[in-house]
């Protein structure tokens, strides 16, 4: 699903966010990317979603080469992908249901089916009683779960999540872990940037450590091997 070879990202201001990233992620796999703030986790996810272009190396996601991708290729990639952003990127003034349903609207799913699927996913993340609430009235944790629901409702081939449990209590982390596990059952590839050990414990997966823009594979929590 993801093939990266020698990928680097240098921002216009000269900041080297990523360097020599080699990564292979198989379809259906769950990969955690951990690391300190500023290590490059968000940049890596942005590259995978086509929000940024690599400045060096080769990066291919779902068969789309992102180094030379055109706008249409990026659009195609994003339609195959569900993404949870650190700042949620929910639309204020809309209900939780409307925000989740937007994900399927973009794909042209008819409203009756869209509504049914969106309600089911909101229930799955524990927000059945908040579907009609405006997102700005929800707590941070609830917003985070709406964002996760919006990402998974479309049953993407690839799920990218940036700190999906950052604002959640233990119960809510459980909801997120369950959603990620169900996504795995459906064959969805998951790349999750996190430093929440609760999630890693609840739902084991391959752990990669980003340190100073370089990627290392961690065989288990607390043990680090050079990739």
């Amino acid at each position, binding site marked *: 699903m993801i093939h990266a070879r020698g990928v680097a990202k240098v921002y216009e201001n000269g900041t080297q966010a990523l360097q020599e990233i080699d990564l292979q992620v198989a379809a259906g796999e769950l990969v955690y990317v951990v690391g300190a703030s500023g290590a490059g986790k968000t940049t890596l996810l942005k590259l995978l979603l086509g929000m940024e272009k690599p400045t060096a190396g080769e990066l291919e996601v779902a068969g789309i080469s992102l180094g030379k991708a055109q706008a249409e290729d990026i659009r195609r990639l994003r*339609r195959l992908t569900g993404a949870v952003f650190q700042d949620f990127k929910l*639309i204020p003034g809309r209900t939780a249901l409307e925000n989740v349903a937007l994900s399927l609207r*973009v794909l042209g799913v008819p409203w009756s089916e869209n509504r049914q699927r969106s309600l089911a996913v909101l229930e799955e993340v524990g927000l059945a009683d908040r579907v009609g609430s405006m997102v700005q009235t929800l707590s941070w944790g609830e917003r985070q779960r709406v964002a996760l629901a919006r990402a998974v409702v479309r049953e993407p081939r690839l799920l990218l999540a940036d700190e999906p449990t950052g604002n959640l209590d233990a119960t809510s982390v459980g909801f997120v872990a369950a959603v990620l596990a169900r996504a795995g059952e459906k064959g969805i590839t998951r790349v999750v940037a996190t430093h929440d050990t609760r999630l890693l414990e609840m739902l084991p997966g391959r752990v990669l450590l980003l340190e100073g823009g370089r990627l290392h594979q961690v065989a288990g929590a607390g043990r680090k091997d050079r990739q």
Partner: protein
Amino acid sequence: MFTNLGYFFAEAWRDAKNRPVAVIFSLVSITLLLLFAAFVFAGGEEVQWLVGQLGEETAVTVFLKEDVTGEQVAVLEEKLAALEGVTAIRFVSQEEALEEMNKVLGSHSAELAALAGFNPFLSYFEVGVRPEQGLAVARQAENLPGVDGVRDSRQTMERLTRLSTVLRLGALFTLIFVGVVMMITISHIVHLGLLAREEEMEIYRLLGAGPWFAVMPFLLQGSLLGLAGGMLAFLLSLLFFPLLFSRLLAALPFLPLRPGVEVALAVGPVLVVTGLLFGLCGSLLAQSHANH
């Protein structure tokens, strides 16, 4: 695209509801602009209609002196018929002339009746002529014995045709001018809407929306604003034109003007289509401006 049509309409409506004052001001401006265009356009249409009506009438009217005898009328008819270019000839007696004017005046015929038996009209010949011979026939007819005067309606028609052309051109330019002003107005309001929802549109893109998904509500909004402006201008012209034309008919009863409603109905589709088209163009302009 069609799956989301209802959603696009709902979004267009939601955006309009969020800034009602701006939208209402735009709608009023567009309506007034189109109403102004409607008046100019109606003027052009009406004069064109007059030309058509008058074109069906005799090109040359030969008025006879009051004391002309029946024998002289017969001789005149023969002479007129023999003139080159004459295609038809019809004698209209004083009584028939009065009757025709009564028909023209319609409800105002009481004013003629008030003359109490006095007939102010002369008898005349309606002479059908080939267009290119009209002036020559008029000149020759003037010199025939028993002829009081000649009216060459061709000249009037030529003037009317020129006036009609000028008015129609004016109407066209007015429509273009109004259209451009409308486009700027609509483009401005749509652009403001697009700017206000920039962040939202970025989210659409991150979800993989096509380029039209985000802007479709605004295209609809601009088009609907134009359409609504056109329809309102049409309704207002249905209200105002009958009043205006009844005043005109009262002042110029001898002109075969159409009823105001008929003129409004003729102009209406132009207003609606113009509103819709320029509304859409304004939205597209705003969208391309926003893309830059």
